[in-house]
């Protein structure tokens, strides 16, 4: 539970209690319920209309927020997961495969954080190792070969900081992923659906169109990490969250993403399918926009897009 959602959740649980009690069918209770429902609705609206950057970090990381698998289930038909980097192993932190998006063949990939302890461990909390990024490269190249677009769904705290990951060249795997993305002769559309955590995110988010869900975050370092380095204490994570300009609004303002997808009232975790449908619609529009470009034009435009990042002041 998120701290700032507490009053909302308390109100909602009261409403449930009243509902259960209302089998005694007193008119008063029904009235009370509808009065409280309006109040709860207003409270949600109020809370979510003015989320601070630090609160958005919490929403972006919410355990009930729709994850990669939720999107696949709702957005992709005939999903056919493909495993392995052909070099060392399979990485379940970054899932990818073939599927059908709005009837069209696509390669789709993204980090899966997991939904419970067991699946979180299985997916390494969505923190990919070099194998994940090398699999991503393999699938991107396959998409290029078969002239089908790539959709990436980004949701990671970052690439995994581990002994084996370093040993097998985490840096090289991320760098090469970016390079492959930049030069890919097929459209790539990325949606930041939760956390866009630094290098681990950009590795699969160097795209023609970059979409962010409204309460997602995209950052060069976690607010906690930033605070402990620059403020010398993780207690300043709130300040860091503000300073880093990691919200979707800031990202759009700074010219680093292309569009924002509004979240349903109270965040994507309250109405998962609605949120997913909106992301789907935006990806669909983006693919449509890109469909008229030749492979060379795509690459040229992608280079130009990233080349200007940092040139203009917001």
């Amino acid at each position: 539970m998120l701290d700032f959602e507490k009053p909302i959740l308390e109100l909602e649980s009261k409403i449930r209690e009243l509902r259960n009690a209302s089998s005694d069918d007193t008119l008063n209770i029904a009235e009370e319920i509808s009065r409280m429902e309006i109040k709860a609705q207003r409270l949600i609206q109020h809370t979510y209309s003015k989320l601070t950057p630090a609160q958005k970090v919490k929403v972006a990381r919410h355990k009930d927020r729709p994850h990669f698998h939720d999107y696949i289930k709702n957005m992709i038909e005939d999903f056919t997961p493909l495993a392995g980097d052909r070099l060392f192993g399979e990485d379940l932190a970054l899932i990818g495969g073939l599927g059908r998006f709005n009837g069209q063949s696509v390669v789709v990939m993204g980090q899966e954080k997991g939904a419970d302890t067991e699946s979180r461990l299985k997916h390494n909390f969505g923190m990919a190792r070099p194998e994940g990024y090398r699999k991503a490269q393999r699938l991107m190249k396959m998409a290029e070969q078969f002239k089908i677009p790539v959709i990436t769904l980004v949701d990671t705290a970052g690439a995994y900081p581990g002994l084996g990951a370093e040993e097998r060249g985490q840096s090289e795997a991320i760098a090469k992923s970016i390079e492959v993305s930049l030069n890919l002769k097929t459209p790539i559309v990325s949606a930041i659906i939760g956390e866009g955590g630094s290098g681990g995110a950009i590795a699969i988010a160097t795209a023609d169109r970059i979409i962010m869900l409204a309460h997602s975050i995209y950052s060069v370092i976690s607010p906690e990490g930033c605070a402990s380095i620059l403020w010398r204490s993780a207690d300043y994570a709130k300040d860091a969250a503000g300073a880093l300009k990691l919200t979707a609004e800031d990202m759009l303002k700074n010219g680093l993403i292309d569009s924002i997808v509004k979240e349903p009232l109270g965040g994507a975790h309250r109405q998962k399918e609605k949120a997913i449908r909106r992301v789907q619609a935006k990806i669909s529009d983006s693919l449509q926009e890109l469909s008229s470009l030749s492979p060379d034009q795509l690459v040229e435009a992608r280079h130009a897009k990233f080349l200007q990042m940092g040139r203009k002041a917001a």
Partner: protein
Amino acid sequence: MNWLSSYIRPKIRSIVGEQKDVPDNLWQKCPACEGMIFHREMTDNDAVCHHCGHHMKITVQKRIELLFDQGEYSRIKLPNVPEDPLKFKDKKKYVDRLKDSRAKTKEKDALIVGLGRIGGQKAVVAAFNFSFMGGSMGAAVGEGLVTAAQTAVKEKAALIVVPSSGGARMQEGAISLMQMPRSIVGVTMVKNAGFPYIVLLTHPTTGGVSASFAMVGDIHISEPGAMIGFAGKRVIEETIREKLPDDFQTAEYLLEHGMVDMVVSRDQLNTKIGKILTLLMETKKDYTPEGKNEPNGSSEQTPFPDNKDRKEKTKGNVTSLDKARNKKKKAKKRHQSKKNKSQTPSQKTATH
């Protein structure tokens, strides 16, 4: 003593900066072997410990100088970028950090770019200045790398990038993150034009710098003992709750794990890179200085004389400047080796 076995981990970060314990600042203690090094010897040996071979930090100016033939190059002016785009402030304002770093280094940001020759081959070198906010990569560094790449293409030269950086510049938020793909767009221009892209990894190369342009070179070279990795050692130790091997993330570790082509000591860098460039540029003879079909235009505009001229200049007709410099250097070296024997504390010398 083998320098590998005497490579002492905890001291690795405290490179230089220990002069205070040493009398008169004339002597410096090697952070790896604790051997005493006389200051002139330090300069003559390009800050490589003559006891154990430990490579210490050198200034970015020195770095760029020792890569180019005869230390000759021309600085490439880098474009300005919007400053402090996020109005970032932690305990200190980013603009003030920039001000301090500029005052300290007399440079605008953490990258300097030079055009010259290496092994007679035209090359653009883009070197990171670790003294400028830890060599962190923000929009200015990204712009510098792109400019370096564009210069290489325009001048039909190789691109050599020399990172020495803690990673992305946090004070520029996601703008600094985007310099990862942006720098690779630059590198791609050089690759597409068919010129070599070499990365010389120096201490330290980590984070967003290591995970972008630094790991997509045609050839990766590293200086001995340089620390190169994605995640910080402490972060990894906290994550896996395990002690890491002593040589973890060193140049030698990367060599063993297939991430770099070779580890080359500082005094061999110019020769080695020169040789590689000559081999790689073989089929690009049209574009090399000796090429018979050199297209008109660009080469004549370069500040460098034709290679043939240069060779003649250095072989037969050494300029007075070169002569003076060589004389001075030789004299210094002679003076140095004599003085060492008498001045180095005998105990210290004996242990090596």
